[in-house]
């Protein structure tokens, strides 16, 4: 029996409309879109994305529906999510 195609959902990432697999993590959504970095470090503005992948390192943080500091590797993408990549701490301080 052929496998059912996995359902997809729509989310917004930095203002762009993305179609991503339902029930995937936000990190997986980025990865599927070929984007490996989605945060800049607080000092030095170096790129960060998936590192440990299991919720320990706090490197893959994104802002989800206005809430900064969400671990993309643990958070599932939900229909309609508005996701923003982060600069600095993600709390609007833009690093220093």
């Amino acid at each position: 029996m052929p496998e059912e195609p996995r359902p997809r959902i729509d989310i917004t990432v930095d203002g762009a409309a993305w179609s991503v697999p339902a029930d995937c993590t936000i990190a997986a959504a980025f990865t599927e879109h070929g984007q490996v970095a989605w945060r800049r470090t607080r000092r030095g503005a170096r790129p960060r994305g998936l590192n440990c992948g299991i919720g320990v390192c706090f490197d893959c943080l994104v802002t989800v529906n206005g809430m900064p500091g969400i671990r993309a590797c643990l958070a599932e993408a939900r229909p309609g999510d508005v996701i923003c990549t982060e600069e600095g701490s993600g709390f609007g301080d833009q690093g220093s």
Partner: protein
Amino acid sequence: MSSGRTYDVVVVGAGIVGSACAYFLARAGLTVAVVERGTVASGTTGAGEGNILLSDKEPGPELELARLSNRLWRELGAELGPAAELEPKGGLVVAAGPEQRKPLDAFAAAQAAAGVQTRRVSADELPELEPHLAAGLAGGVFYPEDMQVQPMMAAALLLRLARDLGADVHPRTEVTGVQTAAGRVSGVRTSHGALAAGQVVNAAGPWAGELAAMAGRRLPVLPRRGFIVVTEPLPVLIRHKVYTADYVANVASGSAGLETSTVIEGTAGGTILIGASRERVGFDRSSSLRVVGLLAGQAMRLFPVLAEARAIRFYRGFRPYCPDHLPVIGADDRLPGLLHACGHEGAGVGLAPATGQLIAQIATGQAPSLPLGPLRPGRFEELASA
């Protein structure tokens, strides 16, 4: 590793104290090897907050050591560069209620008489210094000379400077014995071979008693466990090191049971560190949600804004505790060539440069910059036989 070479000094331990000793010894022109069982700063140094405090020291030998060290840190800060994250941010000790106000003022007055800069802060002035402090506190004392450093980076950078001056650093190398010849130290045996040396510095932190025992000496250094809770990185909410006046009493206590006080500071990386607990439970590394919960609760009472912050992890470490709360710095009384630089309890980062300078002065036969009497290793035996 056995090279046939004889070093002037082998330093045991690459925490902040061993690293500072290696740096000052190399700067004095001695040949130095550092041996470390784990990796740089993998013990107590990597499990603290990096405090360089005068505020918690009562007048006496530890305060004098801290004042010397504070001056040396300021010089080292420029030499180590911005990666050490040395921040002269100042410390604020708050009185939770009127009953803490008087003893805190008396403590600060005695410190001021001993040369510490202090500034009395009224309850009304607290929000200027720390806008997010809870309401209803009874004021405090501000200590502008208190500083903070990233302790792991500082240790690594000190070792790098020592290496630039010719020191050899051997991580993952465990000392298994102290060698003697003709009644004095002649080197150490390690998991990777022997190292010959004229002098050995015991900078093994809470394990310094074990190293002393290998040399047939007794040092009553015991581990005193502490936990620290770490928040997610946040914009600057807390500007200084802030702690409650009961911290000083907890540090000075001899109790083996759990004691906690509220000690909070931000870091250059944006995280906020929440301490402090003290308990004597040996080298038990197991987690204690009870302690972590207590620390988090106290922190939220002092800074209600922290209730909204997310904790991302906690860690624990072991302070090298001596029964009289003073470090052990000096030549061993009975075994020539053995020097001790240990027992700094929770103040090792702050006291490291002065310790390194004193050890280098002892190792080269110079007069020490401070009287070492109260810190001498033999004091425990005198107590025992008294």
